[in-house]
């Protein structure tokens, strides 16, 4: 069986802060239509990997190939326009914008208008805006009736779990080739987390490739097709959930021997 094409590939990706190497010579691959998870203890470098890919800071060394093009060192907006969207571990919503406006910002790179058009708003721009609003509403509806009915609410006034959903909606709005989710269930209780994972599966079924950082192991094991385990910036294991779960080094570094045998 031919494997699906490689979408994202890091080659010897390295980043150090001062004397500390947060990500060390990391190679990993995400193929089209996969759900891949990055796991590891806090501070293992998972978030740094996300920040490197999404362009918050450039790598110290190494390459990040996306659809065969090296995107290492590009600024976040350029990365986004290449087709990568992400969410954040600590939610980053536009608190004083409405739910709908938040999603519309996600449409930014798909809407085209120049300054003059923004100043005089010719009919074709108005039409494109209307279409975007319509599509944004559909997106919200797909993610749940509650978000849809609250579309005129201020983002800051949403319940916590809904804010997580909204951030997901904003990321999906640009129809990215790769969706990166940074601990999407952080701060949720186990049942909320389970619901959210169900949703992620549905999002995946709609044709999104997903790269996930997750802490909640039951969630990760259930949803991922492949898992990369990081510790101290180094990749210590890689494989299917079952392979990873049995890997001695993962038990040692992450699951904990005692926990694994308990």
């Amino acid at each position: 069986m031919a494997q699906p094409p490689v979408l994202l590939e890091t080659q010897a990706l390295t980043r150090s802060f001062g004397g500390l190497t947060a990500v060390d010579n990391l190679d990993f691959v995400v193929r089209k239509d996969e759900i891949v998870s990055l796991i590891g203890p806090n501070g293992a470098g998972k978030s740094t990997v996300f920040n490197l890919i999404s362009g918050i800071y450039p790598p110290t060394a190494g390459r990040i190939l996306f659809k065969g093009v090296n995107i290492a060192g590009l600024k976040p907006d350029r990365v986004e326009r290449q087709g990568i969207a992400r969410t954040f571990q600590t939610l980053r919503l536009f608190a004083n914008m409405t739910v709908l406006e938040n999603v519309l910002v996600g449409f930014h790179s798909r809407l085209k208008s120049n300054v003059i058009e923004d100043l005089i708003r010719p009919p074709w721009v108005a039409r494109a805006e209307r279409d975007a609003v319509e599509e944004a509403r559909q997106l919200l509806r797909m993610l749940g009736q509650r978000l849809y009915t609250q579309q005129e609410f201020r983002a800051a006034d949403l319940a916590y779990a809904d804010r997580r959903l909204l951030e997901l909606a904003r990321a999906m709005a640009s129809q990215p080739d790769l969706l990166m989710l940074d601990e999407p269930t952080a701060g949720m209780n186990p049942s909320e987390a389970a619901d959210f994972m169900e949703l992620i599966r549905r999002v995946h079924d709609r044709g999104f490739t997903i790269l996930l950082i997750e802490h909640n192991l039951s969630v990760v094991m259930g949803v991922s097709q492949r898992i990369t385990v990081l510790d101290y910036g180094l990749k210590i294991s890689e494989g299917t959930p079952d392979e990873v779960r049995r890997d001695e080094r993962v038990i040692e570094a992450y699951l904990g021997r005692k926990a694994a045998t308990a």
Partner: protein
Amino acid sequence: MTNESLRHTLEEKQPLLEFRGVDTYYGSLHILKSVDYRVGEGEIVALLGANGAGKTTTMKTILGIVRPRSGQVLFEGKRIDGEQTGRIVEAGIAPVPEGRRVFPRLTVLDNLKMGAWTRKDGQVKQDMDRVYDLFPRLAERKNQQAGTLSGGEQQMLAIGRALMARPRLMIMDEPSMGLSPILTERVFDTVVEINKQGTTIFMVEQNAYMALQVAVRGYVLQTGEVVLADTAPNLLASDMVRKAYLGET
């Protein structure tokens, strides 16, 4: 231990730290919802919970950085909510903050001195020696900038810095965060050692397994509410903790 005997042991000991129905808010956001904790003298107590459950807010409330809107925080039976942080530290509570938060461009020695900021007695030197005894590594690097230390060394420094306040109660926020398993184990060993020397410890941890290994009792916090309070072994055995915090299915 049954629940009844647990209650018994709790009532026997005069709690060193106590939360009585504490509610805190950020603006209109309700963070801690009528929370009760009791930390007995000499105990290690663990506080478990997911991100955003209110663990860090608990720490900040103890230190007076966040003020409860209702409820009381008592230390040795006296109310400390509403006090200045400086007074609270002086009273004998020292924090090991989340993410270590050492002062990166101060030397190790100066970081330790900052920990002793509220001390007015002349015995700072002895405590410094004690910290160096506990962490010989810090003694070797005392003139180095803290930002150049490794993660594990920074955690030692953060603990050492807290010890410099000569606290009765040390509150630790995620001491294992970002550390490799071996280092985590070493940190927990140190925690036990410090506790043996007479410091009470209240600890927030994500690594539930490790925390409950060293703690006598624990609380589970979920979206601002205490949903479980029990002895460590009972918590380790509880379905909920096993599912949510130990990653078992």
